[in-house]
């Protein structure tokens, strides 16, 4: 039992360990993953050990995580820092940096070289034929058919104001954003709106028109990191300065979206092509190995928490059994813990223990306590009193009675409690992804975000199978531990 506890603690220490270790966060969308992976591989190439805390949800979770020293670095956009995080959109880049440093001891690197904002795109042939390269060039071509997404029609940095600023005479048609590129391709429209780093720009070979009147706000990507980051690491990061232009970002986004390349692969190709790192064998995890590694994390989460809960609930359960008067209030507290909704509990823990596995394990641990505790107490209580008397009369001490008689006879009930806890844990652990603890929940969270039922199932099915496996393991343990006639 003790030995199991040590193993758990060891895992915890290892998974939160220190040294030449840098923790890289990522925002929760394709481009965020790609950029984070570029940073990670660059750092790894320079000899750092990188802990990837991807899947950190939105801007605020990333920023909180950085602020609270749960990660060391993540890629962010200048406009987002000013407008969304600092709520002061008027700030210049250098003002932003000053503010970040003074208030949070955070710094940014130089921009990577691309600007992720709205833009208008046009087919290469038309661009060439009519020599259109900037938005203002559209003015002299009123015959061009412009079709923009409903969202762009509605937005205030959208069509209405854009056309006013550039005095564009066109009357655009609204269409679904998803259909715009196809429409362009089939020459149903000539111009549409897009994000400047959309992979489709690269895929369909489109030209992004220059915003020559500076209408669209700037969202320049850069590394945002904690000031404690050593000078060597900072120097390493400068290698990315100005290295990723719009076109490269587009083609990386395309590679992920349309060429089924993994984030790892895309990042690696970029770094090698740019000569930033030398080509190396990239251990590319297949879906299978990725699922397996997520299962491993999931198991680690579930079982560390379960083991902790067992190590806790056993002695407490015994103590409660010996001291029935205290037992009631303690069981009540364990019950109260259970009434805190899991997401709330996870959120509550962030300020105390940051993000990652630790708060997840604590949450799971707390949820596992009640079933084990209650069944341990009830199980011990329901052992035949005659046998308890015999054990005492024979000369067993309290502990020996527990070890040789009460525990073995209460074991079916205790195991039943552990099984309930284990299965609840496997389920609740899927929520742990919300705070970057990894595991199968990552698929589910990502799937919910991208509305991809394939991804959701990629997480849900192994989780369900895991529950099955847990059941089977316990069945075997039961067979091994409990003589058949006691099991019935």
């Amino acid at each position: 039992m003790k030995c199991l506890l040590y193993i758990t603690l060891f895992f915890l220490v290892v998974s939160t360990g220190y040294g030449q270790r840098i923790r890289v966060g990522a925002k929760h969308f394709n481009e965020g993953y790609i950029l984070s992976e570029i940073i990670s591989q660059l750092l790894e190439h320079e000899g750092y050990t990188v802990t990837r805390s991807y899947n950190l949800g939105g801007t605020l979770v990333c920023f909180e995580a950085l602020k609270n020293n749960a990660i060391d670095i993540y890629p962010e956009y200048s406009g987002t820092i000013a407008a969304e995080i600092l709520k002061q959109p008027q700030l210049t880049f250098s003002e932003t940096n000053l503010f970040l440093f003074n208030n949070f001891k955070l710094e940014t690197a130089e921009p990577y070289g691309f600007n992720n904002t709205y833009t208008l795109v046009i087919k290469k042939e038309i661009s060439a034929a009519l020599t259109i390269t900037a938005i203002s060039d559209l003015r002299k071509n009123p015959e061009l058919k412009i079709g923009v997404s409903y969202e762009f029609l509605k937005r205030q940095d959208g069509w209405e104001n854009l056309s006013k600023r550039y005095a564009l005479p066109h009357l655009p048609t609204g269409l679904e954003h998803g259909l715009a590129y196809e429409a362009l391709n089939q020459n149903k429209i000539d111009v549409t709106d897009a994000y400047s780093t959309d992979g489709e720009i690269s895929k369909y070979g489109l030209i992004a028109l220059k915003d020559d009147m500076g209408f669209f706000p700037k969202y320049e990507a850069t590394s945002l990191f904690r000031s404690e980051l050593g000078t060597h690491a900072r120097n390493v990061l400068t290698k990315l300065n100005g290295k990723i232009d719009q076109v490269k970002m587009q083609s990386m986004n395309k590679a992920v979206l349309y060429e089924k390349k993994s984030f790892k692969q895309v990042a690696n190709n970029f770094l090698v092509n740019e000569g930033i790192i030398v080509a190396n064998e990239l251990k590319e995890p297949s879906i299978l190995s990725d699922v397996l590694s997520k299962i491993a994390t999931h198991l680690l989460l579930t079982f560390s928490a379960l083991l902790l809960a067992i190590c806790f609930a056993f002695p407490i359960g015994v103590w409660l059994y010996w001291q029935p008067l205290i037992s009631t209030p303690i069981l009540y507290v364990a019950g109260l813990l259970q009434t805190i909704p899991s997401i709330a509990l996870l959120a509550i823990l962030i300020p105390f223990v940051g993000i990652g596995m630790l708060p997840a394990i604590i949450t799971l641990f707390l949820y596992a306590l009640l079933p084990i505790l209650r069944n341990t107490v009830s199980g011990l209580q329901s052992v035949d009193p005659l046998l308890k008397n015999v054990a005492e009369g024979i000369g067993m001490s309290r502990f020996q009675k527990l070890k040789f008689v009460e525990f073995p006879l209460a074991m079916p009930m205790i195991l039943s409690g552990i099984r309930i806890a284990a299965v609840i844990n496997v389920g609740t652990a899927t929520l742990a992804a919300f705070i970057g603890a990894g595991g199968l929940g990552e698929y589910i969270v990502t799937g919910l975000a991208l509305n991809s039922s394939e991804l959701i199932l990629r997480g849900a099915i192994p989780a369900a199978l895991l529950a099955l496996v847990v059941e089977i393991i316990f069945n075997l343990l039961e067979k091994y531990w409990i003589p058949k006639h006691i099991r019935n």
Partner: protein
Amino acid sequence: MSTAELINISHQYGGQFYIKNFSVTFQEKKITAIIGRSGSGKSTILKFVNGLVKPTIGSITVFGSPLNYSTLSATRLRMGYMLQGTGLFPHLTIEDNISITNRITKGDINAAQRIEELLSLVRLPTALLKKYPYQLSGGEQQRAGICRALFLNPSILLMDEPFGALDPITRQEIQLEILKLQQVAARTILLVTHDMREAKKMADYILVIDNGEIQQHASTDEVLKKPSNKLVEQLIESSL
């Protein structure tokens, strides 16, 4: 010192006093048979000595010193106790049941050999060792219980109707074995029985109680020859 003594014991079960001012000294290294009608308090006396029941009033002396309820388990290990009903542990094999005290004391006894000795003493085949209690007949379970009580060779032995479920042949054989043991190394034995012939054959002393009161406590001969009252007489008559 394998003495056992109850001094001025009073005890109540659920409200009203059941035993009052009860004192008895059991002869050291002798077999005392405890005789009495059903519900007269025989098992209760053994429980007092073993410490399973703490009397409401009064004190108990064993091994020459007052029974210390905080160090009971050490005392009990020197005191074999076979409860009424067998009380074998259902989750342990017969072998483990018999040698459980060896695991408790982590003793250096050669368990296998000791088990073999005890089995032959109670006439049980070794084939039963790997079985669980539920697979044994009533008499077989009872004999396993005897083995368990004897395992550590205790110098005080409390036996609550130990042979009640045995056929007369086996019963006699085991009675003789116990007497043989007693000749080799005498111990203080308290033997609750309903069989006067068993008492006559085995006991040095007989304690007759009724309703929690001593009727007679004397050597076996004396009790058999001079029963102190009608009840004792009846008990002897009806089973001799």
